[in-house]
Structure formats: structure tokens, C-alpha cells
């Protein structure tokens, strides 16, 4: 009997944090333009010491282009992965994730609608810059609500019906996305198509960056506060209720928080698949299914996975770039099939 202690939790998070740091440094190094780790370290130190003017132009480019993109990858990867962990626990389905459930598609529809509406609304610049993520959040909320009700049978969540509901919702929303895209000026369509596959090149403005960071921290903290409740929800809503969990409250709070994470991530980077599905599984294999460690581990794991995938996307066909969603799908689809088959067996 070895219950989780705060010390062990912090130790494991520190290890994951160290791995994430190493991955970020390597991601800074690799790219279309090659740089040495030594030069990178030297220039990073210079930035930290406030001597940014002494940085060579080559490194300046890297710090201004690659670093924000890596930081965005960290945020998006962590968001998707924490959202996936939450959906899997809430819906009691190990195959649930924002992408499979159609929540990402809902967020995409919301974000596109916001993009189309924005020029016609004459919004102030501050509101306009966060208008797309808000659209994404609302779209994600609507989609998860629809899927939740589609997946209910006689008042209970039915795993198979739920997955089916997600697939149907996703395909319906894909069609809506296509229709919306055709109404756009043709110059935007290629960019939108890339964005839909998932890509991290759109570095957010300063204000938007803060909205993303604060939004992520808030939503993740809210989910983390329910970690013990999520542990009990794994054995069913009735069981959790008899063990003192206010199931209704937890469900609503976590649905909203997880939809917010999905909405923010999709609004910034399109629908990147499989991160929310795969990472929680791998983390569960390593750390067990206690959400007090699983939620932070998934956040780190999602960040690590997405930064690695994005580095591949940038370098594999350099100087041109692949959408990172293509990399996660190519790596993720086989694993998804493996998990599905193992579950059926």
C-alpha cells in the first residue's frame, strides 16, 4: 500500500518538466536553419542577462520565430491532452478524446464562424483578437453537449452509442466546415485547409498569448481540483455518488473546462488529432490511473509529444513544412487501432 504523496507527485512532475525542457531545447536547435547548441545556449544566456543586442541575427531569428512556436506547441499539446484525460474519465470511455468526439470539429466550426463574422461586427481590436478563441470555445461546448445527449440511453452513458454519436457529429461538422470554406475568398482556402489539419505557425499576438496562458492555467486548475472525483467517476456515476461525489457539479465543471481547453487549442492551431487520445494512455501506463498524477503528467506529456511532432513537421520536408496534425495522425492512427482491438479482445 503506497498512497500518492505530495513529495512523490512533485518529484515525478519535476522529471517530466526536465524532459520537456530538453525537448524544447532540441526543438530550438533543429529546423531549416541549423544552429549549434553552444551558440543557442550562449544567446539564450545573453537574452536572460538583458544583452539582446549582442545576439547574432541568425539566432535572433530562431528565438523570435522558433521559440514562440514551441511555446504555443507546449500550450496546445498540454491543453489537448488534459482535455482528453478529462473526457475519458467523464464519459468512462478510454477511446474518448476531443478529436474522436467531434469536439475539435465543433471548435473549428465556431472559430471559422467567428473569423467570418469578425470583419462585419466592427469590434474593438482587443475583442477582435480574442474573438476566434471564444468562437472555438462556444463551438466546443455545443459539440460536447450534443455528443453527450446522443450518447445517453435510458439516462446512462452508453460507450458504443457515445463513440458513434461522436463520429456522426464529427462528420456532420466536417461537412459544415467544407461549406463554410467554399464561402471564403479563394486566397484564404489553402491557409484554412492547412489550419484545419492542425499547424502551429500562427504565433498569437501578445494579448492573445496571455488569454491562452491564463485560460489554460484556469481550466487545468479547475480540472485538477476534481482529480479525486474523476478517480471515482471511473467506476461509474452511481458509485461515485455513493462515495460522496457531487456528480452533477463535477460533470458540468469538467465539461466546461475541458471544452475551453479544446476551444483555445483548436482556435490557435486547428484540429490536431490523437494527442488527446494517445498521451493520456501512455501516461496511464507509466503513472497509473490516479488523476492527481495523471492530469499533470498528461499536461507535460502532451506538451512533449506535440513539440516533438512539430519539430518533425518543420524538419522532415525542410524547407517546406508539413501540418503537424498530419504527423500526429500518422503516428496516432495505428496506436488507436491497437487500443481498440485490445479492448475488444
Amino acid at each position, binding site marked *: 500500500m503506497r498512497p500518492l504523496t505530495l513529495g512523490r507527485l512533485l518529484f515525478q512532475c519535476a522529471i517530466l518538466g526536465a524532459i520537456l525542457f530538453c525537448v524544447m531545447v532540441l526543438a530550438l536547435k533543429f529546423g531549416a536553419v541549423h544552429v549549434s547548441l553552444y551558440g543557442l545556449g550562449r544567446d539564450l544566456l545573453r537574452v536572460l542577462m538583458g544583452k539582446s543586442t549582442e545576439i547574432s541575427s541568425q539566432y535572433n531569428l530562431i528565438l523570435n520565430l522558433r521559440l514562440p512556436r514551441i511555446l504555443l506547441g507546449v500550450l496546445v499539446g498540454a491543453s489537448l491532452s488534459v482535455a482528453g484525460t478529462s473526457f475519458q474519465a467523464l464519459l468512462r470511455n478510454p477511446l474518448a478524446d476531443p478529436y474522436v468526439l467531434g469536439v475539435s470539429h465543433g471548435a473549428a466550426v465556431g472559430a471559422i464562424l467567428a473569423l467570418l463574422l469578425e470583419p462585419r461586427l466592427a469590434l474593438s481590436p482587443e475583442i477582435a483578437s480574442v474573438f476566434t478563441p471564444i468562437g472555438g470555445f462556444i463551438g466546443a461546448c455545443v459539440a460536447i453537449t450534443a455528443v453527450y445527449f446522443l450518447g445517453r440511453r435510458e439516462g446512462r452513458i452508453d460507450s458504443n452509442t457515445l463513440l458513434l454519436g461522436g463520429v456522426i457529429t464529427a462528420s456532420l461538422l466536417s461537412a459544415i466546415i467544407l461549406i463554410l470554406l467554399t464561402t471564403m475568398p479563394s486566397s484564404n482556402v489553402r491557409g484554412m485547409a492547412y489550419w484545419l489539419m492542425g499547424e502551429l505557425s500562427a504565433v498569437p499576438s501578445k494579448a492573445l498569448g496571455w488569454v491562452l496562458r491564463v485560460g489554460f492555467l484556469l481550466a487545468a486548475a479547475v480540472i485538477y481540483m476534481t482529480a479525486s472525483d474523476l478517480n471515482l467517476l*471511473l467506476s461509474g456515476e452511481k458509485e461515485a455518488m455513493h462515495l460522496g*461525489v457531487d456528480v452533477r457539479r463535477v460533470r458540468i465543471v469538467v465539461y466546461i473546462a475541458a471544452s475551453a481547453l479544446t476551444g483555445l487549442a483548436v482556435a490557435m492551431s486547428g484540429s490536431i488529432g490523437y494527442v488527446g487520445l494517445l498521451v493520456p494512455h501512455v501516461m496511464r501506463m507509466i503513472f497509473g*490511473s490516479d488523476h492527481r498524477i495523471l492530469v499533470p503528467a498528461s499536461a507535460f506529456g502532451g506538451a512533449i509529444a506535440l513539440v516533438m511532432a512539430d519539430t518533425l513537421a518543420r524538419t522532415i520536408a525542410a524547407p517546406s513544412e508539413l501540418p503537424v496534425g498530419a504527423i500526429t495522425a500518422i503516428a496516432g492512427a495505428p496506436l488507436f487501432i491497437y487500443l481498440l482491438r485490445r479492448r475488444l479482445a
Partner: protein
Amino acid sequence: MTSATRSSSSRHAADAGPGTNEPRLSVEQVSYAHAPNPQQAPIFTLEATSFQAKAGEVVAILGPNASGKSTLLQIISGALQPLSGRVLLNGFVTHNLEPRIRGQRIAMVQQESQLLFPSKAWEFVMQGRRPYGKSLRFETEEDVVIAKNALAQVSAEHLSDRWMDQISGGEKQRVILARALAQQPLLLLLDEPTLHLDIGAQVDLLETLHRLARENRYSVVVVTHELNLVGEYADQVVLLQKGKCLRVGAPAAVYQRDLLEQVFQTQLSVEMGSNGRPRVIILPGSG
């Protein structure tokens, strides 16, 4: 006995009220109607049912399928709100208790406890400590002692580090019971706990329940189909048929041949054992 169990039993003694003969659980004229939607006529009704249980007593709810046993148990647990009547536990209406308080006073062992992702037996038992903590908590030394004790009380200490999906049905049922004990409840509810158990494990479970009720001063309400085990171990029987409460009383009083034959639609005979406990013998082929 460790300090943890001692504190638990003293809490129960304090909670039992002024006299030990006071009923702890009081089910008062409880009824229920279930309709798939409000416009339709109810497809299932439970007519007014009443009984009481003292601390240390085992009450069995008996009846054929679809007689309303599980519904009655859900109402007692506070999960379902009765259409009329009320259920009092130490004077408090169970349905109105705040979820966490309810979790401290009422433990429920469900028909099936599915696990989405495998967990160790001790982790499962530790879940029973959840009602005693705030939203995010780490288990204390006391929780560990209580969980160990709960496993010991059902003779399952050796299962502590085993995976829940790798132990037998009987062993799993004991671990699930241990989780309920870790809640240190006043009222222990069990919904067909003997389902899927072999006969030896069934006897073992009922015997354990009977002993725990006496030792820990729980009130136990168990839904089951096992007429003979109930006859042997229960202090009271509540006999239901098609949502109607036919009889409440000691097994010897309720177990009458004509009544049981009519309720269970089969020929049987009832004998009195030397210990004053009734035994039912099913007579197959004569009906």
C-alpha cells in the same frame, strides 16, 4: 484493535441515539413511481413500504425479479427521491444529505462494480476514504490504517497489492465490501452482492456481513435472492412482490410455505432448523 477502528466504533455508539433500542434506520411509508417520461403512465410503482432497523441488525429485501428491491434500496440510500414518505437515518432524511456527508454515513455495494482502467485492490479500498477529504487530498496515515483494517475485516489483506481485474469474483466482492467498510458508515447497503458468486463464497459473504453488523454496529440492508442464506443470517425480512410490500418481520415469521409459493411461483417446503431458523427446500418438477 487499532485507534482508527476504535474511534469509528465510538462514533457509532454516539450516533446511535439515547437508547440502543432506538431504530437507526427508519423507512416511513416510502413509495415511488417510475415513468420513462412525465406524460406517460408509470411503468413501475412501489407502494408505500415501511420498516425499521437498529444498529447491528441485518435486514434482507426479498422478492422475485422486478419486484422493486433495487428501487427500494436506491431510495434508502438517498439516491432516489421517494414519491411520498421519507427515509430517516439517525433522524436525518437521507435524500437531503449533502453528498459528502451521505458518503460518510451510507455505503453502497452495487450489483456490479466495473473498472474502466485497472487499479490495485488497496487503491480501490482507499476510494472509500474520499468522503472524508476535501476536493484534492492526499491520504493520511490514518486513512492507510483504516484501509488496511477494512481489508483485514474481510480477510483480504493478502489481496492488497493485487490488480482488481486479476482476482476471482469472490475475492473482488470482498475488496468491494472492504471499500464500503473504509467509509466507516452507519448504514451498509448491498444490492445482490452474491450474484456471480459460488455457493461457498455466498455463505462466506453473508456470514461476514452478519459478523460485521454485530462487531461494527452497522445497520445492514441487503437485496438478494438467496432465501436460505437470508433465513440463516438476517434479523428481518422485507418481502416484496410487484412493487407491493407483502410482509415485514423475522425470517421465521415471514417464511410461510403458502406465501413464498405464491410470491416465487414455485412449489417449496419450509422447515424449521434446530436454531429456530427457517429453511426452504425447492421442490422442482412438482409445480
